[in-house]
């Protein structure tokens, strides 16, 4: 067998290999003597995902005998998520340190990892539901001692039930569950209130969208810092990625799109307001993630409409890809902020301030990147308002400080620094991609946003400055 054919075969099986490695590690835990070694290797079980995200060809692997007929895939939208997860999981393992030397935690860690990778490579919605179950319950096991774990598992059960009903209705409607060509499910969801509500609530619980967000700020406020990157990966891949696949730009139109836009803006606004009232930085970040979910929903709902529906498919796909790339940058920036593990005001060094500020800047850049994908005048008002609202969170994030005397796990600057650098590198690659992209290359879509981006940036900067001043003026709670 030549090297080329071996690579081709590997590429074809890549979506399965991504899952097999962590699952094999999990299986090897049956042998007690291997627990220590597996604990050391566990964070690196995600490496095939990195390789697949960067190098594997676009592929769909059909597994008709699995479950009710399954498929796995690597597609352009999934790639950035695979790379993001491949960056976040080793960081989580790095933070967990010695805690991954025991069989229970490392088993849950590996199951949660394989589940979250499965969410990205799922080729149909049944596999997605399976991956969601595996990652969700394993994550509950990891977070069980955190506040908010009970709310998380309750929402998980409810969310899976709603998704189960959604899947049944899609199959009953003859629409199918394929995600590789999700045009049919998208059109069906866009055209049915019941399906739309089920998908909003089902995925919304995992995306921690406002109203279904209660678990996230509380879990993040717990002592297990290693959960932060894992939770961000979960929110993005279990909540926001399926929305992108199913409510892709162009799927929603008319009343549904308008109503959803207003609802998303309202939920985002509420998340921002409640976030600004938080005393602890990690709870604030929980609300920031909830606001990001609202922002994402808004983005999807306003990017459709009549013009969106008329948009050629390649351009729609390009928009979706550009949005995915920017979302993953936001995920990295938020992970950097969370991993920093805010210390009390007096303990913060200039390096802490610098890292914190840089991560906030990268988050803002990612938001503007997402907003920049939009090209139509009718979208501007919503997006400018959304960016302005998000600015309200930027100030408190810039002036991060920890409430009370509780000391969280002390983390050196290397972890947040590395995540910051990764996010910065991501942003540079995106910017470079836009500048040098030939016409027709997906990232070139970002160039088609002449109006909204500068205004949105202005709104974000002004509100962020005001909220920073407000945060600085507010006396620190002790």
């Amino acid at each position, binding site marked *: 067998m030549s090297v080329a054919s071996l690579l081709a075969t590997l590429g074809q099986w890549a979506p399965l290999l991504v899952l097999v490695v962590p699952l094999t590690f999990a299986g090897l835990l049956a042998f007690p003597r291997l627990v220590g070694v597996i604990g050391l290797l566990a964070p690196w079980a995600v490496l095939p995902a990195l390789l697949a995200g960067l190098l594997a060809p676009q592929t769909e692997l059909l597994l008709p005998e699995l479950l*009710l007929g399954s498929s796995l895939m690597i597609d352009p939208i999934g790639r950035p998520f695979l790379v993001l997860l491949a960056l976040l999981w080793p960081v989580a393992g790095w933070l967990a340190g010695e805690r991954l030397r025991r069989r229970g935690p490392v088993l849950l860690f590996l199951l949660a990892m394989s589940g979250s990778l499965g969410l990205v490579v799922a080729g149909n919605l049944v596999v997605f539901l399976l991956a969601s179950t595996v990652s969700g319950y394993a994550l509950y*096991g990891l977070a069980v001692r955190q506040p908010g774990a009970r709310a998380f598992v309750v929402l998980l*059960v409810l969310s899976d039930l709603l998704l189960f009903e959604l899947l049944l209705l899609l199959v*009953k409607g003859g629409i199918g569950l394929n995600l590789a060509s999700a045009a049919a499910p998208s059109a069906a969801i866009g055209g049915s209130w019941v399906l739309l509500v089920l998908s909003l609530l089902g995925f919304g619980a995992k995306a921690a969208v406002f109203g279904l967000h209660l678990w996230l700020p509380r879990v993040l406020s717990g002592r297990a810092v290693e959960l932060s990157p894992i939770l961000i990966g979960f929110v993005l891949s279990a909540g926001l990625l399926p929305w992108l696949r199913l409510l892709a730009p162009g799927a929603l139109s008319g009343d549904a799109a308008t109503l959803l836009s207003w609802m998303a803006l309202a939920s985002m606004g509420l998340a921002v307001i409640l976030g600004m009232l938080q005393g602890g930085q990690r709870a604030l970040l929980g609300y920031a993630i909830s606001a990001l979910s609202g922002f994402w929903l808004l983005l999807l709902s306003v990017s459709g409409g009549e013009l969106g529906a008329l948009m050629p498919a390649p351009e729609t796909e390009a928009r979706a890809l550009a949005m995915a790339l920017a979302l993953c940058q936001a995920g990295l920036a938020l992970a950097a902020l969370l991993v920093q593990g805010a210390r009390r005001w007096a303990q913060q060094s200039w390096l802490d301030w610098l890292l914190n500020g840089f991560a906030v800047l990268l988050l803002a850049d990612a938001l503007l990147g997402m907003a920049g994908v939009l090209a139509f005048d009718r979208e501007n008002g919503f997006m400018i308002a959304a960016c302005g609202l998000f600015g309200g969170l930027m100030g408190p994030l810039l002036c991060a400080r920890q409430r009370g005397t509780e000391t969280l796990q002390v983390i050196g600057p290397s972890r947040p620094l590395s995540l910051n650098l990764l996010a910065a590198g991501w942003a540079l690659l995106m910017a470079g991609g836009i500048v040098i992209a030939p016409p027709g290359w997906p990232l070139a879509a970002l160039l088609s946003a002449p109006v909204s981006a500068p205004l949105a940036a202005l709104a974000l900067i002004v509100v962020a400055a005001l909220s920073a001043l407000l945060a600085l003026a507010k006396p620190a709670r002790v």
Partner: protein
Amino acid sequence: MMPTIDAALPPNAWLPLLVLASSLLPGLVIFFLAERRYWTRTLLNLAGSLVKLMLVGAMLWGVFHQQQYAASLPLLPGLDLVLRVRPLSLLFLALSAGLWLLTTLYAIGYLEDSPNRSRFFGFFSLCVTATVGVAMAGNLLTFLLFFELLTLTTYPLVVHRGTEEARRAGQIYLAHTVIAGALLLAGTVWLYTLAGTLTFTTQGFVADLVEGHRWSLIAIFVLLIIGVGVKAALVPLQSWLPRAMVAPAPVSALLHAVAVVKAGAFGIVLIVYDVFGVEVAAELGVTKPLALVAAFTILYGSLRALFQDNLKRRLAFSTVSQVSYIVLGVAIVGPLATVGGLVHLVHQGVMKITLFFCAGNLAETLGIHQVSEMNGVGRRMPWTMLAFSIGVFGMIGLPPVAGFISKWYLGLGALEAGLHWPLFVLAGSSLLNAAYFLPILHRAWFCEPPEAWPEERDFGGKKETAWLLLLPPLVTAALSLLIGLFASMPFTPLEWARLIAEREFYQP
């Protein structure tokens, strides 16, 4: 009396009789064995169950390739004792033969050093004989005979411990099942006087009577369903089942997953499909009330389970709920719902037996009987609790465990039939399942264990428990996972249920 075998049939028509004999003969011999003949008894038990499994495997292959297996013994003028193996029979037969082997292994480990083992294993084998007789029954009379034999052979198992509580539970069990048996007999006789035959037929044998005897048929349907509904634990006929939990764990496993409850559910399937025919039953208007009873039972069982601290009682109420999924699937009327109901016959059996094996392990190894005593037990008995967890996830209906496949087809079948309310029932039941099962897992895996367990037994060294107790739940847990994960492969319960539904609904 020699069995008469149709000359047109191949010689392997003896197979149904051999299947019966493979548990009947060892059972009869075991009765007369002295208590100390441990190895002889074990050998007979295992040889019988292995032979049965192989015979069932051979028939599975044959039926898939359109072979027929039937034998008949003259019993009454015009009425034979007929054993006939069809795809539907094989679904139940394979379940009972497979799980009998595992339950036998488990019972050997469980009853080590306990008294009256020959009596126990004798009735145990007779019970399985009755169960496979029910599965292979070719007419309603044969079904009735084996169904009642099942009552008589399980009663001694329920009262095996000989305590006052066990005797009381046995009396209640007997009272329920004997009255139900009388109703079943009355319905059978009435039906025979009307139809002149009792032979099970695909799409039923009463279609010609609908016009002239509509109300009689409805009354017969009610009598027959009550007759089998007691064993299927349909509300309000379920009260014997939680009380019967006083029996040893292998008996509980047998009652819930292999024999009694399953025979009741299987009886409902036969009455709807092979006596009345599903379309005739729908035309008579009896399937809708049956579906409502099933729905109520599903929710009632789950609600009652929520408030039980005794682990086996919680599992018993869970059975009340889960077995009615089979009835619901049948009563919804449609190919997909049929697939869901039939496949749950197997799936529920495999998952529930896992849970009962685990409950038995906890009781035997650590003396744990209550949910409130299970704190941290996952650290002490990780493999048992891993098997238990897989069973629990299946019961809730989470992928990839087998329960997900059942619920998927039931939900889809309801939509296919134009009904939305079963979706709410399924959703409500799943929520309740999660509410009464997940806290057990939380306790077992994430709470701190006590300083001492209620009654800990030492199995030597660092062993979790005896391997004969550990192996069966691990095998059934793995099965629950595999038949869900690879549901669409040939010869899986799902594919077999599809084959049955196809013949029931699409073949003339």
